[in-house]
């Protein structure tokens, strides 16, 4: 896909994997809902899909357009609170509310992307952090946003899509899957369109991009808006489909880091990488938990385990940056290529 643009050495056509996507979709839509347990569907696959979507949003901005952001959590909270506001104050049906809140978040992203004409690189990070802390403050300070709830949490009374009740684990899983698949399809096409190519040109060198006639500022701001749209939808899904009830604390700076780690581990500038990274990030804590249970059988308390987990995450980040800067997606791809070429070595 986009890799073939930046690395001409990649001669292998994607034809070998032509059946890959339909197979994944078949498994996702039919096999998993039939065979998966409620725990797996509701507690692992739903958050995994939503985090993938958030990763995708950040990846469009960071991996494709080259603008770093530490405000993902903040934009997710905009999506969540906008959806809540639309449903509770406006009586808008959920699917429409999701779309609208995505657009509202896109507007917010656009606003915080405006400084990108004068401010670049690390300096631009300050704009995304401004967004992060501003929204954290906004949604905590003004009770209107959480409808004067005493604990400051937001919760939707009933999850229904076009009259169908989707609050069962399978329903929530399928709702998330449909949205994530649709948005992923859109993103995969977007990055191969003129817009996506302009983003990559800006990422690689914005001065050069300006010289060849790309409207740099407009394209950058568009990247902020599109990325925020994805993050907003992901935030709304995270609050209502996964958590059920959410507050500002669900979208703190730690969430921003988590989303950033997903794209570093999965692959910056890759679509499939977001899913791999999100899977990795959702499964690693479970794996560490499991190992700790087995090895130490209750001798390790939860606090220590959390810190060990944190240190392992950090080490993995460094390891990935040193060993495989293109992330797990790249690793999987080269592995796949070697498989298809086997027994030839190249």
């Amino acid at each position, binding site marked *: 896909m986009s890799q073939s643009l930046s690395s001409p050495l990649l001669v292998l056509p994607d034809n070998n994997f032509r059946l890959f996507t339909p197979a994944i979709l078949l498994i996702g839509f039919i096999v998993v809902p039939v065979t998966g347990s409620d725990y797996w569907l509701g507690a692992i696959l739903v958050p995994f899909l939503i985090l993938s979507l958030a990763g995708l949003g950040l990846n469009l901005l960071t991996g494709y357009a080259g603008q*770093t952001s530490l405000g993902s959590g903040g934009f997710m909270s905009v999506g969540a609170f906008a959806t809540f506001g639309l449903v509770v104050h406006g009586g808008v049906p959920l699917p429409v509310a999701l779309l609208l809140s995505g657009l509202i978040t896109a507007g917010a992203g656009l606003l915080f992307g405006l*400084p990108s004409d*004068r*401010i*670049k*690189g*690390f*300096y631009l*990070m*300050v*704009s995304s*952090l*401004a967004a992060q*802390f*501003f929204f*954290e*403050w906004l949604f*905590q*300070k*003004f009770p209107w946003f959480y409808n004067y709830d005493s604990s400051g949490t937001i919760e939707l009374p009933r999850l229904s899509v076009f009259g169908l009740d989707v609050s069962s684990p399978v329903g929530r899983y399928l709702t998330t899957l449909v949205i994530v698949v649709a948005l992923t399809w859109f993103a995969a096409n977007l990055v191969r369109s003129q817009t996506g190519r302009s983003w990559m040109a800006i990422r690689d*060198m914005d*001065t*050069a991009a300006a*010289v060849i006639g790309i409207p740099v500022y407009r394209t950058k701001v568009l990247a902020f808006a599109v990325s925020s749209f994805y993050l907003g939808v992901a935030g709304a899904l995270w609050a209502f489909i996964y958590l059920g009830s959410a507050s500002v604390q669900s979208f703190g*700076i730690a969430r921003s*880091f988590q989303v*950033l780690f997903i794209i*570093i581990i999965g692959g910056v500038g890759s679509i499939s990488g977001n899913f791999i990274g999100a899977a990795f990030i959702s499964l690693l804590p479970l794996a560490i938990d499991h190992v700790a249970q087995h090895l130490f059988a209750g001798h390790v308390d939860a*606090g*220590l385990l959390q*810190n*060990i*987990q*944190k*240190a*392992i*995450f*950090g*080490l*993995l*980040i*460094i390891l990935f*940056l*040193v060993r495989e*800067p293109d992330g797990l997606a790249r690793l999987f791809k080269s592995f796949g290529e070697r498989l298809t070429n086997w027994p030839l070595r190249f």
Partner: protein
Amino acid sequence: MNLFLETFIGGLLAGTMYSLVAIGFVLIYKASGVFNFAQGSILLFSGLTFVTLLEKGVPFAGALAITIVILVVGAVVIERTVLRPLANRSPMTLFMATLGLSYVVEGTAQGLMGAQVHALDLGIEDVPVFIGDVMISQFDLVAALTAVLLAAVLALLFNRTRIGVSLRAVADDTRAALSIGINLNRIWQIVWAVAGITGLVAGMLWGARQGIQFSLSLVVLKALPVLIIGGFTSIGGAIVGGLIVGAAETLAETYIGRFVGGGITPWFPYFLAIAFLYIRPAGLFGERALERV
């Protein structure tokens, strides 16, 4: 007017605490072009190590010495395992690596020494001093003096010693510095060690103020607008930036905050920084890079 002066001076003094954190950043950025997000966790780590040693009964000077040794060893380890393998990679990659590093340092510090809040008593009494009618916190004064002293020592180090001169050479032109035989890896180790020690000083002061706990590592987020305003490459800028942020955020909280329900200090400095950047895109004292195709 009195209230204004009190808030203003209190803000300025609190701002020097931000400067202390920002100085550590500037050192590393100057020498290696790395935006070191882990500075906050180094603050936490050094403060926690120091206070744990104190609680174990190690005398003050001993605890200080041991912590410094650990920081120096840490700097060497970081240089070998993180910086050297990532040499010549993009600044963004290095930034993300320090983000990973901050997780490692935080996880290790809290995993080994616990996550509870430790009180740290440096023997500085927090009694208000009156200058005329204006009340000033004595603790803030000591912190401010420490920041100025630290900046002075660093300035001496940079301008009067051999190491300092090679450090400036590296900051000026890394390739030229390499070609005249400056050991870049050694310079990085020294800079990270010095930044660690600045982190220790900052960690001790912040820790004495609010207790040594996880929130120390979040101070890094306070130092960021300071850096933006002062510029990434100037120690003087870090101090001026700290003063501006400190004064502006307390004034804003007092005079604007009440109209919007208060609590605006987390985000106000960032908006201030954006405003500054619009006027000077590389900070007050930062160097404007030329762009070529």
